[in-house]
């Protein structure tokens, strides 16, 4: 699951998977702005078949936080 999160982040922001870490965030990835964050959320929801709350969307601002958010929603 974690691998898939990394893959989605990599595809959406156009960065190599091996450049990503748990603490990768808008501060470390140049393409990760509020608009691209929306692309990321929509992509994650499709890949994992989940739907985040609006509050969660605003909070999931690192690869680690995203992984946690997905885990919470997976059965």
């Amino acid at each position: 699951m974690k691998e898939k999160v990394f893959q989605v982040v990599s595809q959406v922001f156009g960065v190599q998977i091996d450049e990503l870490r748990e603490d990768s965030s808008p501060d470390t990835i140049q393409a990760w702005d509020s608009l691209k964050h929306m692309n990321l959320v929509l992509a994650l929801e499709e890949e994992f078949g989940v739907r985040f709350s609006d509050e969660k969307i605003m909070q999931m601002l690192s690869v680690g936080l995203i992984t946690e958010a997905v885990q919470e929603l997976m059965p």
Partner: protein
Amino acid sequence: MQRLSYSQIQGELNAERMAALPPFRTAVLRNVVIEPIEPYLRYLAYQVGSNLRCEFSEYDNVFQEAVGGHKGILNGHIDCVLVFIKLDNLSWDLARRFASLPPERIEGEKERIKAFITSVLTGIRKQTAALILWGGFELPIHPSLGIVDYQQKSGQTACVTELNQFLRDALQAHKNAYVLDLNGCLARVGAKNFYDPRYWHIGKAPYSREALEEISNEVFKYIRPLKGKNKKCLVLDCDNVLWGGIVGEEGLGGIKLGRTYPGSAYCEFQQEILNLYHRGVVLALCSKNNAEDVWEVFRQHPDMLLRKEHIAAAQLNWRDKVTNLRQIAADLNLSLESFVFLDDSPFEIGQVRQYLPEVEVVQLPLDRAVEYRDIVAAGGWFDTLTISEEDKQRGAMYRAEAARKELQMQSQDLEGYYSSLEMVLEIRFADQFSIPRIAQLTQKTNQFTLTTRRYSDAQIQELSQSDSADVIYLQLKDRFGESGLTGVCILKYDGDRALIDSFLLSCRVLGRGVEDAFLVQCMNRAKWRGCASAIGEYRPTAKNDQVKDFYSKRNFKPVATVNGTGCFELDLAAFEETEPSFFKRIDSNLVKSRAEERDA
């Protein structure tokens, strides 16, 4: 093309192979956040060989951009303008507090919005002649007056409908401008899945991922025909596609086909295919069957809606489908790129996808015949910007073509065969009736075209009225029927030189000397206008290799090659006015007779 997820699409787009494709510049005027649509648009563009880039107006700056050229994104280089104006951000009153408005306020808002539409549209057109696709206002999902609203002429639903009618009329008054049917997208996706209230509140982005995907598909139903990439031919498997079961095993009486379940799914599917036929889609069969079994169903089954006369070509045998599809393309003189192939077998689908990637392959899901009709109706592969009389008769024309091929096999020599066709050529200047078809031909023709220049209705209109250009078309009739408007030549005059800006023929009239007769007539015209020479160009594309020697084989001298474009010159003074002798009649009004000339 297999469906990719939103994430996969963005991954694909990161690969740099797109950079080499020709650009397709899209300006997006909007009063909502809609940036996440870009990957879908870019991926669809990639499939038609373009590198699409969106330039977004600043948020809610539609008027400033259209009328004031604020950011300068509408300029001469733009290929397409998309307009997304959501009523909620344009008139909170009409969208959200309709029930509390006095009638005069409603009228006032309507007038304000109409004036806004007019100014924005005029503003866009002052800056660019590019394709405009403007999303209609979405109808209210929960009208403000509840169930009463729909009953009332003055209700919110009626109000939005009136604005949409105004928008449609306003766009129709311009060339190359269309309403993008967002209400159709909304209906197909369903309101619950169309909107994303989270992102509406977080960032004024109203549409869900599913909505953005559907809207992008809708946009490309317009762009594909504009780029000549719409499909023309639907190739069908037979068993478990046109009917349920296998006719070779179950026999005529055993297959599922009828007005009631389970045969009704196949009947409805056939009706949808027939509707495509009447829109000008060419139908063909490609099936592993004994041919006689299939034709027996076509002839004898009482619930068969498709008839043999609807089928332009058929490969009913036990060869592989790749070979058979190639044969159908050759028989019909159509490129495989214009084919959609429907089959229920994953094996056949996989094979065609692997060896003929240019064919759009659609696997009909096993055991889900009840969905076939929706699948073929939803494709949008065959959409054209207009449906002409030509389109409606295309099926008959292709059948006639097949009959010609048969005669050709019987005829001994080529000239004798041509003569036996009793061909009558009609060559005329463009007029208001022919302009839409001429523009359509420039947009759709990929193979027999020397320069592949695409023109809109408006541009053809302008050229046809110009003193320094002639837009000429040809129509062909023979003993098997009419081929209709199937050739275009655009001549531009510069001093005593005539430039052959465009010279193209539809594939369905190739191989019978029409191009020679047409060129002679057009050159006679240039000579009559007093030109000393004519310049022909060959602009190579991936598709038009067959015409690379067209000019050099016809006494044009190569003079230069500029950026890959070959230029050829014909000395009109020395030009012999000989036409092929096998036409029954060539009826042209391009050149006045000498008597008329003397009188003038």
